[in-house]
């Protein structure tokens, strides 16, 4: 039995080597399919790691509150730029109270608007972030020079401003910024602090932030009364779930919402951890969908194999006749051609894996060169999947030509010209 199998494998390999170019072209479909599955799985995992690293860098104990409800229809409309005015400065104050939310550490409320900063002939167009003094505690970051604004300045419409490092460099270059006055619309603001360079965390560039007391933005620049975003820091990630419930309860009470199901909420509370779960779910779905598409190409490759195997059977009709004449049973011929098809696909699968791993590695290398936090991940699952599917493809698409070969009558096959 064993000598028979090795003999059959030898015959299969010899048949493939006889037509090297044809075998390779036939294999190409499988190589591309398997390679694509590997690359998609690896790049998917890499992109996922990039997103997850970014989000978790923010800290999993951060909770965000957005105005507007988010039901099954998707996120609150406020994220799409539609102004919803249901959250106010006083809501932020209430949430910061430990009586309402025992696990709260600090809260920062935002009211943002676009603005142009002018200093002499220099100008900078950016987003003016009106915020509360909780900014430093919640968002983190350090001052390079000067100071942050005080609680008093937050309330009494002080025209003070803290600049991100990029903003400072754009406006002032190397010269001293703290103590200088910047013009926004008709108002003159005093620069009281400059933040240290921090880069991009969780897709937010902290270096182009322009921080101004929230009341100043609301009353003097934007002329609004609502806040656009509120972020809270919870004392530990284990308490996030409980804190979210407390925050929801506090806001419902303040907004006179008696329905505790969440359907009538005019706000949305969500945590980075929830976002992580959601991102993971979405990217996983995307990854497997793309891998399934790539697996489709394996089926196309399989049809190519069937085609070539049929050609091979008709080319070797006389050989089949001879083998039968000297004693080969139908099953011997069937196994021979089946093994040949499987050899093509498995060999193609191996080349595909090598190519796929190589390309994935290249992508990771380039991503890391571009300073993305990208992991090179080859999951064993993708390799098992690729090899398994390619062997099955060989089996499935090899059966028809092989059974056709095995059913040839020896006399007919010997007579075949």
């Amino acid at each position: 039995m064993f000598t028979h199998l090795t003999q059959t494998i030898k015959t299969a390999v010899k048949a493939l080597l006889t037509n090297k170019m044809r075998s390779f072209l036939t294999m190409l479909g499988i190589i591309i399919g398997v390679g694509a599955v590997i690359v998609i799985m690896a790049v998917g995992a890499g992109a996922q790691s990039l997103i997850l690293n970014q989000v978790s860098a923010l800290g999993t104990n951060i909770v965000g509150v957005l105005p507007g409800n988010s039901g099954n229809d998707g996120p609150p409309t406020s994220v799409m730029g539609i102004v919803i005015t249901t959250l106010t400065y006083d809501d932020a104050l209430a949430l910061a109270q430990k009586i309402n939310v025992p696990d709260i550490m600090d809260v920062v409320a935002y009211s943002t608007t676009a603005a142009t900063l002018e200093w002499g002939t220099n100008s900078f167009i950016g987003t003016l972030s009106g915020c509360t003094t909780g900014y430093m505690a919640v968002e983190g970051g350090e001052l390079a020079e000067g100071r942050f604004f005080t609680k008093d300045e937050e309330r009494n419409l002080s025209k003070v401003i803290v600049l991100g490092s990029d903003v400072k460099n754009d406006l002032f270059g190397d010269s001293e910024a703290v103590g200088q006055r910047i013009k926004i619309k008709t108002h003159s603001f005093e620069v009281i602090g400059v933040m240290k360079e921090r880069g991009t965390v969780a897709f937010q560039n902290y270096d182009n932030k322009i921080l101004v007391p929230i009341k100043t933005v609301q009353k003097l620049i934007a002329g609004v009364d609502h806040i656009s975003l509120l972020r809270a820091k919870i004392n530990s990630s284990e308490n996030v779930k409980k804190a979210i419930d407390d925050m929801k309860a506090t806001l419902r009470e303040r907004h006179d919402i008696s329905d505790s199901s969440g359907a009538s909420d005019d706000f949305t509370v969500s945590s980075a951890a929830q976002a992580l779960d959601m991102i993971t779910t979405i990217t996983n779905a995307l990854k497997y969908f793309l891998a399934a598409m790539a697996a489709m190409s394996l089926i196309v490759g399989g049809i190519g194999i069937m085609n070539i195997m049929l050609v091979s059977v008709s080319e070797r009709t006389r050989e089949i006749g001879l083998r039968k004449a000297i004693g080969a049973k139908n099953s011997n011929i069937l196994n021979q051609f089946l093994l040949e098809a499987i050899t093509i696909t498995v060999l193609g699968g191996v080349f595909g894996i090598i190519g796929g791993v190589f390309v994935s590695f290249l992508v990771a290398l380039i991503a890391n060169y571009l300073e993305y936090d990208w992991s090179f991940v080859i999951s064993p699952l993708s390799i098992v999947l690729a090899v398994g599917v390619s062997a099955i493809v060989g089996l499935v698409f090899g059966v028809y030509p092989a059974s056709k070969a095995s059913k040839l009558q020896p006399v007919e096959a010997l007579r075949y010209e």
Partner: protein
Amino acid sequence: MLIEINNLKKKFESEGVVTNVLHGLSFNIEHGEFLSIIGPSGSGKSTLMHILGLLDRATSGHYGFEGREVTTLDDNELATLRNEKIGFVFQAFNLLTRTSVLDNVKLPLTYAGPELKSKLANNKKDWINRRAKEVLESVGLGHRLDYYTNQISGGEKQRVAIARALVNKPSIIFADEPTGNLDSKSGVQIMKILQDLNDAGNTIVLVTHELYTSEHAKRIIKIVDGHIVEDRPVLNRRFASEVEVLK
């Protein structure tokens, strides 16, 4: 008695047209015979050989092979019988290309079942190689083992084919126009080998359309239009030798 056929008929049916090829043939072949089946093309001699060689089935009639009725056997049983009891030599050699002489001769043994193995192996591990080399040496090709079949001459190819037919120590060898693709000198060599094999006790059935070639056998059956018109011993038997080439 090696082969016993009785009222053997064969008809082909194609698109509703029935062609009777063999009209009830009956004859026997004994162990050790050298029989030549002769007839013009279309006479049915090849069809008869295919049926005798278990490559094809008769439409009706009886066929006993070594005392066993073979008309009722299924494809696998016929394949096993061919593998164990029969050797074929074809006009076009039918060797595998890009394959060594040795591997070609080994081929029947790679399909060997337990019975053939026990007949040939003598419990030796490397029996397939040993047996193949042995027969190749016996047909004078011991020096060509690793040559590919496209690197040797026509006469040598047919000797490889004879070695392949002999490798399973068959009860009978069927040679279908074995000299048809050969020059006369190689043809004589092949006939000499066949005669020597018969002298050594092998049963041989030679199918040919040439009276001259058939006279190397000991008995001639002539077939015309599916009927046996002659079944006679060869009185002035020809013996293949180098002298013959000069004629």
